[in-house]
């Protein structure tokens, strides 16, 4: 098996594991980790597309690789935003559940039903 094929299979497995974790884990940080697994699996697919596109003396197609670099930075930014939300949620409420039912028990009392200075 060549590295591209191997990486492709690994990428598919990562997407599968990530999807499973994203659906099942109730904890948002675990969901975030699972999302990142899917993300790296997707980047690996770009990686093998790039490697297979080796031509004209280049050992890779630079376009998909450039996209992966952009993607990694965006994925990090997403993780940072999610972590900030999770930590703030834990700090102000002591719990991190995403279950809407749990929040419905404490309805809003803000005058405008949202927004506040």
């Amino acid at each position, binding site marked *: 098996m060549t590295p591209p094929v191997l990486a492709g299979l690994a990428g598919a497995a990562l997407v599968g594991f990530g999807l499973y974790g994203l659906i099942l884990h109730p904890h948002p940080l675990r969901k975030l980790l699972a999302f990142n697994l899917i993300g790296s699996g997707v980047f690996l697919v770009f990686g093998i597309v790039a490697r297979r596109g080796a031509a004209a003396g280049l050992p890779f197609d630079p376009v998909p690789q450039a996209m992966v670099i952009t993607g990694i930075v965006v994925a990090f930014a997403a993780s940072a935003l999610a972590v900030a939300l999770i930590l703030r949620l834990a700090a102000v409420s002591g719990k991190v559940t995403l279950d809407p039912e749990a929040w419905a028990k404490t309805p809003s009392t803000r005058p405008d039903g949202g*927004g506040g200075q």
Partner: protein
Amino acid sequence: MTPLIATTAGGPLLVLAILLPAAGVLLSLALGGRAAEKVALGLTPLGFALAWLIAMQVAAAGAPLVYAIGGLPPPLGIALRADGISAVMLLVTAIIVAAAGFYARAKFATPDGTAESRSALTFWIMLQAIWAALNLIFVGGDLFNLYVALELLTFAAVPLVCIDGRPETLAAALRYLLFALFGSICYLLGVALLYGAYGTLDISLLSQRVQPEAIVWTAAALMTAGLLAKTALFPLHLWLPPAHANAPAAASAVLSGLVVKGSFFLALRLWFYVLPALPSAAPGAVLGALGSAAAVVGSVLALRQARLKLLVAYSTVAQIGYLFLVFPLGLGAHAWSALGWGGGLMQILAHAFAKAAMFFSAGLLAEALGHDQIAGLRGAARALPLTFLTLGLGGLSLMGLPPSGGFEAKWLMLRTSAASGQWIWSLPILAGGLLAAGYVYRILAPALAEGEIELRARPQRARELIALALAMTALVLGFAPQGFFDFIEIGRPLAAMSAP
């Protein structure tokens, strides 16, 4: 025969339409404080003028405007492309963003001498960022560039949801973020597969190369699933109501009226522009079925809400459902496709204006009464006639009663389902309309009843008028002339074949 993709006259306007609000974001952060508001509001007339110019150029040329960035044509470079629907969406976005900006001044103004505040800076910057992202989505010609636009939209929209900082808004924002990220990554995976199969991501180049084969179907399924999660189509709608109902009213209007349309627009681009070579019956049926379910389930849930803003948010879930009927009714090269296409577009516009107007009104109402419980609205219409007039007019369009854009959209869709022999799609349209009548009645009936009500504060007349103007626009859309429908045909692949 592949014509080289080259810049056309008017092409530079497309770059400006994206970079103007993007520059506003940077300027607002660098200057901080009061400047953010000034920059955002100051850009609105410029942005509107640009959108208008683009529409005029498209109409004059009768063909899409194209710009190859850096003079580097695809496949290596990135192209921007504006056709009829791009121009219409640019205009709608400019109008609603401007309306939201002026409406929000009452809440997010930073008076002279006060320090920069968290919520104000966040709001003004994110409003401009949403604008930039949407404009890119409407004119983007490269699937990866559109991925960046999708992410830009997500990062701009999520902080607006929790701008108020209560724990339930944080939870709503977090759930929204996770759904949105899942959506983008699915989309990106599809992009990777398409590049692997055809070596380009330019929409027009792809449309010439795409064949109905396994990899394309896989990519299409992944990208569609991702975009559905972002558009909150049933059964992936769970994140939307708490997110849209908890944001400040000005933000809710933009989120419900425009932001979900961004990902929907990409679904349109995907199926109508990238994949016209695929057989359209099966995907059309699946998307139509999901849309129908959304229209019914969303309306039923809206009927059961105790809070006005939640009701309006669930109504968005239902109205998004109608949008997806454009796939069974407009896809393919049939004689009736143009009719269905027009209906779908009209539904986007009518809902954008009507929903923005209703969220504005719901916000005014909540500020005036101190709550937004529907049970506590008795007698409110007498105290706040303009606000309830707006809610009623918006509701008229949601129900699809004439004369309104909503009526026009549903009428076109009904005609298409008759013309195409797909009677089945008329059922959700009619059922959804009845249910919408039910939930609009639920708002208006108690409000119109006799009763004493105490106002905390009288809403500003200007803000009421902004909301009313949007609701009136939703009505006026019902009188759209034939020229409008010819305009949105500009640049649609297969349009020539399906012209009636």
